[in-house]
């Protein structure tokens, strides 16, 4: 299988090949995420309100699958960790903690993390589309523009710690795989408990398999290609804002693997929503609020740049590499989301937007 892929890469090697790879993976991710309603925000809210359910089970399943598949690919040598940049650069503890908290708060306020917003925007949700636009602007500003000094200041709060990015090197050999098996086993118990059908469960496993597949394919490609191609998992906040920047200034540049994933996720979600008759024009209302989305978008953008990843990029992709920073960030996302939900949305249901009750946070929601 790997040899077939290597042969394929050697035959069709071009700078645009990674774009097509990203597009294919993105299409699958977008499609499955749309159909399953995959949403880390809902998972965190379910847990914090003491009623873990479907969303949490799906999230855990995807996480377990991602860890198991990525770690076993690393163990079998299919993914070469030497080429993964994040494993060899130092990460910032302060960035992961503060960024994670901000991101968690942002996803509750904007009612969706970056990947969820991308999926929702493809199904006709204008709130998600506008929120994403603001996220993209903020990410660009935090990476290159007026907010970059703030980002650097936060990152430098703690000394650069190279070890925080190399957990897997410190752990016993089979620990990664065991962690994956354990997570997946708990997830399977949750399937039974929360009545998740086999099909739905397999869809969640597919979602988790896609970051592993992304690592695998880009790693194989990097070993054979003459083109400089980074080894990447699935990441959305950074590539989405880069794509946005390109649309505004330079449309000739190659969006690369990451850009392909973003376009793919959007198209995939759009297609499955089309087929399933789930396209629905949704806009702001008095109940949904406006300001909370804008503030949430700013927090999501800032958080994602500090963490260097969103709930998918840091959570599923980097998490499956057992990157310590990513795990710290995900824990902080959970904490931030729980605290914000308690502060703002205590009295609404998990699917707050479909609910017609007015938020307790009338002041912020407006």
């Amino acid at each position, binding site marked *: 299988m790997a040899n077939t892929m290597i042969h394929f890469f050697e035959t069709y090697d071009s700078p645009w090949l990674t774009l097509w790879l990203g597009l294919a993976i993105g299409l699958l991710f977008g499609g499955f995420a749309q159909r399953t309603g995959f949403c880390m925000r809902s998972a965190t809210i379910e847990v914090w309100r003491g009623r873990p359910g479907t969303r949490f089970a799906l999230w855990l399943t995807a996480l377990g699958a991602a860890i198991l598949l990525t770690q076993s690919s690393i163990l079998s040598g299919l993914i070469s960790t030497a080429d993964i940049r994040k494993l060899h650069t130092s990460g910032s503890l302060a960035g992961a903690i503060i960024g994670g908290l901000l991101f968690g708060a942002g996803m509750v306020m904007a009612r969706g993390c970056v990947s969820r917003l991308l999926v929702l925007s493809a199904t006709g949700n204008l709130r998600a589309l506008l929120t994403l*636009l603001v996220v993209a602007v903020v990410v660009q500003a935090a990476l*290159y523009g007026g907010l970059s000094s703030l980002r650097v200041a936060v990152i430098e709060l703690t000394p650069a710690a190279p070890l925080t990015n190399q957990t897997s090197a410190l752990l016993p050999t089979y620990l990664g795989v065991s962690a994956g098996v354990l997570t997946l086993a708990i997830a399977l118990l949750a399937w039974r408990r929360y009545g998740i059908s086999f099909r739905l469960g397999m869809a969640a496993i597919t979602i988790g398999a896609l970051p592993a597949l992304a690592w695998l394919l880009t790693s194989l490609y990097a070993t054979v290609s003459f083109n400089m191609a980074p080894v990447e998992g699935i990441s959305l906040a950074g590539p989405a804002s880069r794509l946005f920047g390109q649309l*505004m200034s330079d*449309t000739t540049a190659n969006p690369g693997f990451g850009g392909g994933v973003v376009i793919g996720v959007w198209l995939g979600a759009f297609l499955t929503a089309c087929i399933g008759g789930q396209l629905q024009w949704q806009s702001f209302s008095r109940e949904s*609020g406006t*300001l909370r989305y804008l503030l949430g978008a700013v927090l999501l953008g800032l958080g994602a740049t500090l963490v260097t990843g969103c709930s998918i990029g840091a959570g599923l992709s980097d998490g499956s590499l057992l990157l310590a920073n990513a795990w710290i960030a995900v824990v902080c996302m959970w904490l931030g989301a729980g605290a914000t939900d308690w502060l703002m949305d205590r009295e609404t249901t998990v699917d707050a937007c479909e609910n017609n009750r007015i938020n307790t946070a009338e002041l912020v929601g407006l």
Partner: protein
Amino acid sequence: MTAWGESVMDIDVAALINDIGAGKTSLVIGVGVGLLFGVFAQQSRFCLRAACVEFWRGAPREKFSIWLLTFGTALLATQALVETGLIEIGSIRQLNNAGSLSGAIVGGLLFGSGMVLARGCASRLLILSATGNMRALVAGLLVTIVAQASLRGGLAPLREAISSWWLVEGHLRGLARLLPPYGGVVMGGAFLLLAMVFVRRFQVSGWVATTAALTGGTVSLAWLLNSQHAANAFDIVAVQSVSFTGPAADTLMGLINSPSLPPSFEIGLVPGVFIGSLLAAVATRQFQWQAFTESTGTTRYLIGATMMGFGAMLAGGCAVGAGISGGSLLLGTAWIALFCMWLSAGATDWMVEREGYRRWWPERDPPAIALGRNPVQPERT
């Protein structure tokens, strides 16, 4: 330049520029002009969209008078300054470089439609967003993003194609050559006189009328200051006046692409207007949070903002940049763009807010963009 102009202006301006540098001088002019424009436009509620809507509904009233007063003042003051030589039209890009008539027509039509849908032109959105209106903030952001994409990004090829349909030479763009000497001043005076009649007839308050006139005056002031700056600086300085879509796009790109902004007129103007409007709104207790609701609609704002962003880049300016600033210079393409804005604003208002839709498709419900029908004066009082 007349002797009077030299004696008054040269000493101050040249000294100032040499002290602080051309870029920073432009920035200071931009911030100053922006603050003034923001305060005056917020206080007078100067709004081309509302003026158009009043006009086309056959009931020109306060909004129409305010717009006419602003336009008349800007035209009279700018033309008077051009006649005295204080504004040197030889250094103004729009009057010397080739322009596009097709761009002015198509862009003007798009912009006019867009401002009715988004309930405010680009400048109005900026001013409203500083008074706590989040609809305007979101729509304004989208106008800016689309404008940037039309200038250099994904929409640039389309813009260039439409612009190339009908080009016009630079020296043919000035309408002044068609008029007798002092024709511009006379025209400005006539507009102002007409505006005065309307102001009296519709009992526009003294404060509103004064600030409306000062809004127009600020546009002339910007031409004057930038022209004097260009005449006295060693560096090449672009002579420009108040305009919104281009400068907003520059400001946004500056904010997201570089840690620090190179100082310029545009970079000062947009924040200046925002702060001016914010201060005026807070001082007069008009600051009020406003969000999207079912009755305001959301889609119409997004469609309108997109049309305005693309239209303004095509037309060479927004309702103020082309309409007032370009118009006050008697720039032919700007007058055509302004005319097209008036036409399509009226047509769109008729289609979306009035009986147009019912008459064309009597059996169907109005589309989502027609949600939130509003009377002539939708803003808070």
